């Protein structure tokens, strides 16, 4: 047998590394394997979102339809107030901005609440013995997989004026009349917090699990106190996990529909309900609904881009 060739400078790595050769790789099949995913997501996700953007610039027709005439009317309606009859000098329209603003601070508050309880929970789980971590994580994840609608309905049932919470507190004599939580911003807040809490725990857990506790020991050895260590050493080290958790909570809270709809009542509109309303019945305004969705998507995109840039800067350090 004679071997003659020019073996490259490829390392002494074992057979496990690299599937460079076509013998085991799927290089030639990449396109056929990916075509279904490209087609489905491209056709039924990317294209619809693009059409939605176009739609937001179309002219509204009654009964939910549109005519294909370019107009800024939807965005004008969102931002500009020209009075009841459209003859007053343009002023900033506060109705929808207020709704968006309420969504933003509700989402931000829910994020903070989730962080306040999610961080210690994640830390606690990650510092358990390996065997019990799996059980804890499993328990934290299960509620996430339970239907969001059912979880929200449960919360509505509990918080109702004649629901178990009020009944129990009344029976115990803690309160003399129902708390009246349902249909308030507080109920919405509880709903958001409850819905997305697992999203905060999981990424922080992953970060703490990778954290090298010898860093804390080194800091303790250098006379740092427990909470100083947390602030100066731990939090900077696991920041990416915390940021990821915050985004995973903030983004869905921003566009949430079920919590404000079932717990908030008519006065506590958030973006989700506003958009939903535009597509219901003949009162709807599809271009305006599309415009609201475009604005929501832009806000989410801004958050994600800011995070990606921060992550890149962090990686470059």
């Amino acid at each position, binding site marked *: *047998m*004679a*071997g*003659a*060739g*020019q*073996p*490259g*400078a*490829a*390392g*002494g*790595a*074992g*057979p*496990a590394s690299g599937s*460079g*050769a*076509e*013998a*085991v790789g799927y290089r030639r099949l990449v396109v056929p394997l990916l075509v279904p995913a490209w087609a489905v997501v491209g056709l039924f996700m990317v294209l619809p979102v693009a059409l939605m953007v176009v739609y937001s610039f179309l002219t509204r027709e009654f009964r939910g339809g549109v005519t294909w005439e370019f107009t800024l009317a939807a965005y004008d309606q969102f931002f500009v107030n020209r009075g009841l009859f459209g003859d007053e000098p343009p002023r900033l329209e506060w109705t929808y901005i207020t709704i968006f603003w309420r969504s933003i601070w509700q989402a931000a508050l829910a994020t903070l609440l989730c962080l306040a309880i999610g961080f210690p929970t994640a830390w606690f789980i990650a510092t358990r013995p390996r065997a019990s971590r799996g059980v804890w994580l499993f328990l934290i994840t299960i509620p996430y997989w339970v239907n969001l609608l059912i979880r929200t309905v449960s919360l509505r049932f509990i918080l109702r004026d004649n629901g178990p919470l009020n009944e129990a507190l009344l029976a115990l004599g803690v309160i003399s009349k129902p708390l009246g939580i349902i249909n308030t911003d507080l109920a919405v807040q509880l709903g958001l917090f409850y819905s997305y809490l697992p999203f905060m725990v999981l990424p922080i857990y992953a970060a703490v699990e990778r954290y090298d506790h010898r860093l804390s020991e080194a800091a303790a050895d250098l006379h740092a106190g427990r909470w100083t260590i947390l602030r100066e050493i731990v939090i900077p080290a696991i920041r990416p996990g915390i940021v990821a958790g915050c985004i995973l909570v903030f983004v869905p809270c921003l566009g949430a529909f079920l919590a404000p709809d079932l717990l908030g009542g008519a006065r506590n509109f958030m973006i989700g309900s506003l958009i939903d309303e535009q597509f219901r019945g003949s009162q709807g305004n599809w271009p305006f609904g599309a415009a609201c969705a475009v604005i929501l998507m832009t806000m989410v995109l801004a958050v994600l881009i800011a995070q990606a840039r921060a992550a890149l800067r962090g990686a470059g350090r």
Partner: protein
Amino acid sequence: MTLDIADRAFFTLLGPSGCGKTTLLRLIAGFEDLTAGEIALFGQPIAGLPPDRRPVNTVFQNYALFPHMTVAQNVEFGLRMKGVPEPQRRARAVRMLEMVHLADLAGRLPAELSGGQQQRVALARALAPGPRVLLLDEPLSALDLKLRQAMRVELKAIQEETGITFVFVTHDQEEALSMSDSIAVMSAGRIQQVGTPREIYEAPVNRFVADFIGETNLVPAEVERVECGTARVVLPGGTALACPAAPGVGPGAHHVSIRPERVTLSPAGELAATVERVVYLGSDLQLMTRLADGAPFAVRLQNAARVAVPAPGAAVRLHLEEGAVRLLAD
């Protein structure tokens, strides 16, 4: 580079990691694409064939035993792919497992075996289809020392028993020297020397081979003249010696290799040196000395009762045994 591997031989590719020996093995197995040149097996070019069309099997470094199949199913896999009927391949698998002393573990899953047992299964699996060439990619590197030494003897025995050509890749020179009929020393993608273990160790052709295999003293030497297969060299300090010429080495500044164990202490020795330190190694003693020009020089003495060990700082004379000095190409 060109490399011929004799039929029925235990052939070893030896070199530091990153020298291209695994790539060469993967080229033979068909996992890397040949960009130029050719590979032939018993005269048949195989470069264009996919791995499943080459009469070559591999024992992988981490064994790559299929974790969802039993030991027997693993061993039968190659025969099954070749379309061998079930009774025959079952019998063959049993024979292979008997050869590696694992017949009673046929029903286990790989995860239930020790590292050494997994290694034997990998060997049985690769031998079962009856390849004409068996490729072994550092198969012993994951085992502990004791097991590794036992497997060396066993691998060599199996190779002799089956008469299959083994192409063995390793970075461990002791492994290479102890098992091989023939060794190719590789570095930086090139073959440096091909020869029997004795040739490689005792007559290295260049500095890389001399330095990589075993321990040696590389001493600068001035070649004065070369005639009739003998070179006359002058060592630092002015000692002049005769040693076998090396191909392609003419007069000028070169190096010679002197193995530490081919040097003895003798009042009539050719080289003057000062002892700096004595290192106790159990069966041996290593003297760290310096030559007259300050270059370090190691001497290895057997730890026999009669050996008088010089104290650090002592001036000694070193005698170079017959044939100890090898002239090297660069």
